[in-house]
């Protein structure tokens, strides 16, 4: 617990550093309202998916199909809009389809006992493929302004993007779910020792299934946000985003082996990662470098706990 708190303080320091150095290097993207709005809008999608994925990883599972579910939900949104559906009907359908995608992952993992890493690498390809089946390579961009404003304009009177507002609400929901409920306590127990959890009467399979369904639904919601933000539904939306999301979760101090982590840490990590990415992009640094930095952070966040643990144990 103590080491987790230390990890979060380190992240807070890192966040301040990113804001200060980033502002200096970019002429203050974090300081102007417009700049902050853009940074917030850019990181909201990734941060949204990181929330349920935190619970999945704490339970010692993984879901790599999230970015493909995002793409599928974006493609489905476009296809149904082309069919003339009203958005009021499209949005719930898209979220239900996302939940179904998660349910398929959950079924394969819990009922057939397959490793989630393999299952979701498979469904990563499968759901992205489905996205192209649904919409082909066209882009649907004629959504009504009344909806795209959700992604393109701030909350009136402020520079807060609506997606960040949505993220804040869900962060509270998932934070409470993980840290204050019996469900969350069970998730930690499963991640730390699944067998002991089962021997304590915890319904391990059901809880894991629910986690995959939640992740699918939130990934679909993130797909809607993404589509509205860029006012464009495409099958390849969010390709490769799973890397960033997993990086945010692990950088947030969640153990890749399960059983440890906090939503607070993941929120900080999402802000750090999002801020850093935008600062680099605004500073005209090539996207390859941005990828490189993400990759290094991912490695560092897996590496750092192992190192600090060794140091605290006092053996080389």
């Amino acid at each position, binding site marked *: 617990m103590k080491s987790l708190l230390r990890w979060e303080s380190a992240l807070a320091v890192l966040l301040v550093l990113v804001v200060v150095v980033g502002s200096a290097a970019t002429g203050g993207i974090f300081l102007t309202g417009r700049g902050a709005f853009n940074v917030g809008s850019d990181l909201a999608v990734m941060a949204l998916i990181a929330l349920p994925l935190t619970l999945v990883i704490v339970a010692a599972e993984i879901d790599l199909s999230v970015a493909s579910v995002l793409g599928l939900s974006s493609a489905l949104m476009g296809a149904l809009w082309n069919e003339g559906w009203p958005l009021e009907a499209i949005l719930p359908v898209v979220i239900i389809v996302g939940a179904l995608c998660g349910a398929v992952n959950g079924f394969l993992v819990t009922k057939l006992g397959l490793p989630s890493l393999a299952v979701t690498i498979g469904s990563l390809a499968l759901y992205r493929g489905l996205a192209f089946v649904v919409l082909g390579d066209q882009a649907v961009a004629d959504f009504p302004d009344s909806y795209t404003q959700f992604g393109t304009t701030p909350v009136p009177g402020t520079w807060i993007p609506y997606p960040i507002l949505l993220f804040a609400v869900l962060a509270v929901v998932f934070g409470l779910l993980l840290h204050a*409920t*019996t469900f969350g306590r069970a998730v930690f127990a499963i991640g*730390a*020792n699944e067998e002991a*959890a089962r021997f304590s009467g915890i319904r391990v399979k059901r809880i894991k299934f629910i986690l995959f369904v939640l992740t699918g639904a939130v990934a679909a919601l993130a797909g809607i946000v993404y589509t509205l933000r860029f006012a464009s539904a495409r099958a390849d939306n969010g390709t490769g985003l799973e890397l960033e999301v997993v990086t945010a979760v692990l950088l947030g101090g969640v153990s890749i082996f399960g*059983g440890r982590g906090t939503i607070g840490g993941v929120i900080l990590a999402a802000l750090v990662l999002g801020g850093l990415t935008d600062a680099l992009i605004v500073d005209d640094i090539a996207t390859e470098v941005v990828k490189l930095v993400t990759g290094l952070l991912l490695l560092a966040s897996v590496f750092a706990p192992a190192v600090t643990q060794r140091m605290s144990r006092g053996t080389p």
Partner: protein
Amino acid sequence: MEVALAEVSKSFGAVRALREVSLTLTPGRAHALLGENGAGKSTLIKVLAGVHRPDGGQLLVDGEPTRFASPADAKAAGVAVIYQEPTLFGDLSVAENVAMGRHPTRRGGMVDTAAMREQAELLFERLGVDIDPKRPARGLSIADQQLVEIAKALSSDARVIIMDEPTAALSGTEVARLFGVVGALREHGAAVLFVSHRIDEVFELCQDATVLRDGGFVWSGPLSEQTPDGVVRLMVGRDLDALFPKQDVEAGDTALEVRRLTREGVFTDVSFDVRAGEILALAGLVGAGRSEIARAVFGVDKPDGGEVLVRGKRIRPGSPGAAMAAGIGFVPEDRRQQGLVLAASIERNAALASLNRLSRLGFLRSSAERSLARDWAVKLQLKFSRLTDPVGVLSGGNQQKVVLAKWLSRQPKILIVDEPTRGIDVGTKAEVHRLLSELAAQGVAILMISSELPEVLGMADRVLVVREGRLVGEFSRAEADEERIVLAATGVAAG
């Protein structure tokens, strides 16, 4: 090679795990290391194995002061540790496991499989055991796995062999075979350090002994100078009266009925009743299917046939939740893997089976969680520094108390305990026995599995014997004796 510790001390922070301990391991002799859990035995082993470096005192190899900077150093010096649960490569052959890290090669660097097998065969022959070097290690019994580890140690010319509670998971015949192996090791001039909680074993096997208590050195010398009672007194620092204080209780109504329970290939057609206030023991050899029966009753495993009834009502098979709702509690065999989440705190572990009772609308009330843990820590005289400490830092006996707290806090009507005192110290053992006896007196029906016959005979009102997945004998408290149970369990000329 003679290895000795001279007034060795080791502290972890403020905890003094070892204080000025001295002992000498002599070639050709078996040396017992005795002490309650938390006495410092594990730390001492780790000092010898090069895992920990002592803060004070000296490690002497053939009289020369030596430092083991790492486990590899200790290994190179000829010290090998055989842990209670060996870690072999399941998919590799026995011979490859024996040769691991030092495969014999032919010219060109290819592994010489034939030489490897021959080497394993020779070693097994030296030990007087019969294990096929060609078979995969997966599926070997724990006893055989230990022997493979011993062969592996010998193949790297180990001269000092440390065995950490090797007999805790072995059946009678396996223990006898292991004793034969220790004899063979001694004949070949190896020094053996043997850790065990079973005093009778120690007297049978060892020539010397060292007793530790609370990290301090109590006594070291030849066992011929001691009696078993004397050694126990040295270990606990007081006289042990009433190790098995089972009170007589008038058994009440039938609490648990098991009807024709079957899991294919594991156990067949098992039927029995347990009445309120009764302690029913399942005796038998390790691997006879006792734990598996308990797991199926509790619902962790789903039986293929048969049913479980609690006070006449059938409970849903394969559901621990349903068993718990019906009032069944289960203290499993492997407390580190099944009973506890070692990385989680004491209070979280104590509350883990009661999450729903401790919550309102799904939200956990942490104050209720804390007071549950605090109450039971007091009731069971748990030794701990903070309830938020990970349960893994506690000694084995105290860990078992947390598992007991976890289930007793649910006030079960039926309690299944699988090896309730395995690997815990004599003092805590007596506490656990007293507790089980008190629970029975309060009308709890107890189903106990134990591989320790004195425990079975001391605690049980009735004994069922399991052999190869079937119930083969039933003895009342008056009828039960060691000989009858062993005969039924082994199937040698029943009668």
